């Protein structure tokens, strides 16, 4: 008997205003059929002061909505201020922590924690080692193919830990020390004036011949396409993956979450669900190439195969 697949809301990757974030989380708390919500700024520490004071209120509201709240740590840690932030997070008593950079591992060894999708857990040995240090849950890197996910989910079962796979939203592809948002505007990171706020789903990067290509979010580069694994939810369940991750975008995330929940509950076929997802107004093509071990941008429609 398998337990019911859980839906999660990943941390907001983009620089939304405090008001936009509050509205988003209150709506998720009250209306979205999700089980876990990850809070915290994972991309740029300069953005953190804008929302810090709201975390208690948001976490409280989400808990009242029946959601588990987890705090995600910064994905790239360099400065003293950022190192202190990580140390502070690791001392939180009331919340679980999702680790996105190995800096946190020094503080956490021995205490339960989650591993985020920006940590490099590609194989069963690494998973077992981190589980031995107290990792209880692994959000897997988006580029992992189905075969590897299958093996990791199986090992997770044996280790008594759980696994999570991103099923919706742009895929994080790269991190840098340089802010490409600032660069596009002729600025540097220290003098960025928060231009990333202009692009709440990221800044489009197209090829010279005007093909849609990548998305820039500060120091992060993401896919242009949106990962959509609606067609693979039953396979994920069969493999033993326990959590499906939705990356927040400005589209109606309550509708997106509801659609994934309903599809998991067999209310729609994968094809119907994908049509409904398109109707939500996704501004980019879908992709599922990574899952199939193919170029990540590709969309492979298995149901269309005879």
């Amino acid at each position: 008997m398998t337990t019911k697949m859980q839906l999660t809301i990943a941390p907001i990757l983009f620089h939304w205003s405090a008001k936009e974030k509050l509205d988003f989380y209150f709506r998720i708390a009250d209306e979205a059929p999700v089980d876990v919500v990850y809070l915290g700024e994972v991309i740029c520490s300069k953005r953190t002061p804008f929302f810090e004071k709201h975390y208690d209120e948001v976490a409280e509201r989400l808990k009242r909505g029946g959601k588990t709240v987890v705090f995600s740590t910064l994905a790239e840690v360099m400065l003293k201020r950022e190192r202190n932030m990580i140390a502070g997070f690791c001392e939180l008593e009331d919340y679980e922590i999702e680790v996105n950079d190995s800096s946190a591992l020094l503080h956490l060894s021995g205490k339960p924690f989650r591993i985020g999708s920006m940590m490099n857990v590609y194989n069963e040995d690494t998973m077992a080692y981190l589980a031995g240090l107290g990792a209880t849950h692994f959000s897997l890197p988006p580029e992992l193919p189905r075969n590897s996910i299958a093996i990791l989910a199986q090992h997770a079962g044996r280790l008594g830990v759980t696994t999570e796979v991103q099923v919706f939203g742009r895929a994080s592809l790269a991190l840098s020390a340089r802010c490409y948002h600032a660069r596009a505007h002729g600025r540097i990171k220290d003098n960025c004036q928060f231009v990333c706020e202009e692009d709440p789903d990221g800044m489009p990067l197209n090829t010279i011949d005007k093909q849609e290509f990548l998305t820039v979010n500060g120091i992060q580069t993401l896919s242009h396409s949106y990962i959509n694994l609606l067609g693979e939810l039953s396979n994920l369940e069969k493999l033993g993956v326990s959590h499906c991750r939705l990356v927040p975008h400005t589209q109606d995330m309550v509708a997106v979450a509801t659609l994934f929940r309903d599809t998991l509950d067999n209310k729609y076929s994968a094809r119907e669900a994908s049509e409904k997802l398109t109707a939500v107004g996704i501004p980019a093509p879908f992709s599922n190439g990574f899952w199939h071990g193919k170029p990540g941008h590709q969309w492979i429609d298995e149901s269309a195969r005879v």
Partner: protein
Amino acid sequence: MKRPELVCPAGTPSAMRTAVDAGADAVYCGFQNATNARNFPGLNFTVPEMEKSVAHAHAGNTKVLLAVNTFPPAGKVNLWKEAVDTGARLGVDAFIVADIGVADYIARTHPGIRLHLSVQAAASTPEAIKFYCRQFNVKRVVLPRILTIPEIRNMADEIPCEIETFIFGNHGLMVEGRCSLTNYITGLSTNMDGVCSPAAQVQYIKDDAGNLSTKLGKFTIDCFSCDENAGYPTICKGRYLTPAHDGAYYAFEEPISLNLSSLLPDLMAAGVSALKIEGRQRSRSYVKTVVTAYRRAVDSIMAGKDPEISDLLALTEGQKETQGAFKSKAWR
């Protein structure tokens, strides 16, 4: 000031001989498979080649550092363990690793052989590095190319292991070990397959006006007019369009190479134990020229003289060089 080790690229047995003869203190190399981050056709070592090459390097008093620095995907870990066991049998002086599972295997199975933390592990803070030192007895960290020299100096004071930094060569803009751009375009992963912009998926297309487009997979990475040198289509060195910028621009970085020759004295004073030259995919003449130049520079600094720096511009990508993140935070 402690004499730093000059760590040189050895993509082939002949490149390794060249580096040894040019005065390398150490060479780094890998086997012909996905276990190392330069898994390119025609590069790297068979087991018999490695055996001979280790003997030659050791005869020249040069250390051999074996790169086993990719991330084994689930179900394929044995290939990495085999590479490690073979390296141990052949007497390599250290393993360069990034994956936690591989590091743990080495620490348990070959505790007598030095462990170096690869740049692919992206350990950028004292805490991250201390974690690896504590868990796996790491002796040296190869720092990500994202820190300034003052930051490196502070790091040296805080960590219990040696520091290796890149000083010359191709300059990837993304944090190593945290980039899946190539997989997004080509289906081959930098982390799992050791591949970045694979040549088999590169195309050069000339139009009627003589402009040359470079493509990776189905995406155009750059377009060069007749009077420009066409660069290799590395995704983070391409020109792209975005509404916020007027015209096509190098969204990440232009084709450019790292060259820290004029910062060498500062790096050495900052407590860096090893200086790394990138370029396992480059020619023997590149290895010879760059290693010779840096050998002379390091020796003159150690002798208390001003470093003699040869002109290495001709060997840089796009004939342009940068001091990258090392010189100033303005790079970010």
